[in-house]
């Protein structure tokens, strides 16, 4: 198992180099330069060139890329073109907000999606099942920013207890977490329902019943764990997507997170910030994927056996 984790961590190195190369090249080929943006409206060419020179943006592609890689090894992504502050510091100051939002949303999503999913599978074709299906269809179809805006309009506007924007206190997280969770829980609930239905009908569940186990025990001890694999994958994917920054939700609720930071940096041709954030997010993505894979091994002994081979 440890060997498997070690191998996977080593594999991250080429992946990260590949990601850096790809993003760096795309940024290189996109038109525009930071000088044009920083010099203000109707800039003179000399000013633009001078700014680009100061930032080191006029040097050749390979020189800049290797300088970037050199910095990465020393955990230094350079300074942001716009703020002239170290990128790493800027990301680290914003990341906790994104992480909190993503983590809380993931927990609420999992609780809502899994519990309602199981309930509607166990009570298939009952009122609860139909009702939850309709509700989940509704929330699957509604974009999270719309739900976010509705929450602001209907709840935050009338209730000063909820802040309209920002996350200065923990209360600021409640509405965005609800907005994201409702959207993500809806498909998760559908998925949990269908995998549970499949496992409930499987032979080993019948064996468990034939042993004399009551329904509750059969569902939790036998069906649930086997239905969990696709559910964990889905939750992992959601969490990853949220870490990448739920840009839209962050924008609606005016949360200064990583997502809005990257979008801003791309718009300003702020290469060090884009690269730094990309790299940072790639690493967190890879760690989450690895965590999900390790979790698989604890759910399904067959997968564990494959890892240890």
């Amino acid at each position, binding site marked *: 198992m440890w060997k498997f984790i070690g191998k996977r961590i080593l594999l991250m190195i080429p992946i990260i180099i590949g990601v850096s190369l790809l993003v760096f090249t795309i940024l290189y080929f996109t038109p525009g330069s930071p000088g044009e943006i920083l010099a203000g409206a109707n800039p003179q060419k000399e000013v633009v060139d001078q700014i680009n020179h100061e930032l080191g943006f006029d040097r050749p592609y390979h020189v800049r890329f290797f300088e970037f890689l050199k910095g990465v090894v020393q955990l230094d992504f350079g300074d942001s073109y716009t703020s002239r502050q170290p990128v790493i510091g800027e990301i680290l100051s914003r990341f906790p907000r994104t992480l909190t939002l993503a983590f809380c949303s993931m927990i609420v999503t999992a609780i809502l999606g899994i519990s309602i999913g199981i309930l509607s599978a166990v009570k*298939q074709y009952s009122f609860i099942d139909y009702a939850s299906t309709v509700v989940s269809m509704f929330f699957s179809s509604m974009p999270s920013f719309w739900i976010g805006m509705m929450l602001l309009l209907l709840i935050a506007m009338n209730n000063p207890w909820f802040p309209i924007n920002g996350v200065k206190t923990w209360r600021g997280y409640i509405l965005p977490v609800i907005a994201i969770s409702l959207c993500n829980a809806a498909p998760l609930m559908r998925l949990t329902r269908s995998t549970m239905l499949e496992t409930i009908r499987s*032979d*080993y569940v019948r*064996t468990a019943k*034939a042993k*004399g186990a*009551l329904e509750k025990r059969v569902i939790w001890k036998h069906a649930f764990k086997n239905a969990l694999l696709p559910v964990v994958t889905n939750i992992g994917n959601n969490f990853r997507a949220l870490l990448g920054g739920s840009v839209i939700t962050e924008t609606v609720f005016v949360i200064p997170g990583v997502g809005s930071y990257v979008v801003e940096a791309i718009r300003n041709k702020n290469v060090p910030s884009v690269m730094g954030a990309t790299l940072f997010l790639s690493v967190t993505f890879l760690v989450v994927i690895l965590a999900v894979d390790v979790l698989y091994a604890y759910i399904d*002994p067959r997968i564990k056996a494959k890892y240890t081979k």
Partner: protein
Amino acid sequence: MSEKLLEIKNLHVMYHTDLEDVYAVNGVNLSMKTGETLGLVGETGAGKTTLALSILRLLPDRTGRITEGEILYNGENLLEKDKHTMATIRGKEISMIFQDPMTALNPTQTVGQQIYEALMLHNNANLSKKELWERVDSCLEMVGIPAARRKEYPHQFSGGMKQRVVIAIALCCEPKLLLADEPTTALDVTIQAQVLMMMKNLRDRLGTSMILITHDLGVVAQVCDNVGVMYAGEVIEYGTLQDIFKSDKHHPYTEGLFGSIPKLDEETERLAPIDGLMPDPTQKIVGCSFAPRCPYAMDRCHTEKPGSCNDNGHQIKCFRYTDETAMEVSS
């Protein structure tokens, strides 16, 4: 207490889906005594498994329905028991071995845990955890698996070994009645013999009564005391092993069944199968269910259901035997 361990009276089971109704079991009457082994033979789709599942009330929740009849176990109707009483009967009084060992075990639990669960659920003697695990070990040894392997998962076992685990689960609480649903069908022939011998030995040692469902007449001949032949959801012939294998009187379907087994001492180019197919189970059958395929079919076979002729316990549902004159006409 009734002398009969299990008595099934006029059992009707149907599967109800949105598309169609399937009549799986149509009026089965069977009874067995304590200690007896009853073989149920018949081709695929004859309703054997449905019958076994009905006894344990394990039919699929939404679709399977027992529409008529009684299942008396020690004189008590199982169909009237509530969920909790049923749970105390399952595994402890009546247990079941399933057809496919590959899927019958939970892939995420060790085999030890799965046997332990059965023991723990029926732990009336209040044994401690340690004692229960000792029982698990002895159950594994009983079916010929080293106790050390209890910590392994089903995927680490071969098919034959998995079926042994399934048998250990079924027998660990020493049930009075064992329903074995084609326990050897999914195994290859050499393993089949092993598993069958083991089941036979365990049955004799534990004094368990058994219903053995199979379509292998050889297996029946080795293990069973009495045999019921099922066709289209009915028991069309029932008798002792002697009656079925040695008697001259047979239901035409049983004749066909034996006729379709190749014989070693006769030179034959082709097998002699029964012409035609089983009747469509979505249609209610009028008359004898075998009539369309029966070489002796008379007009009345298509319109009337034959009763059961009883010749010292050898029961045949056919007009040829219920009505002696008709037999003479046809022969």
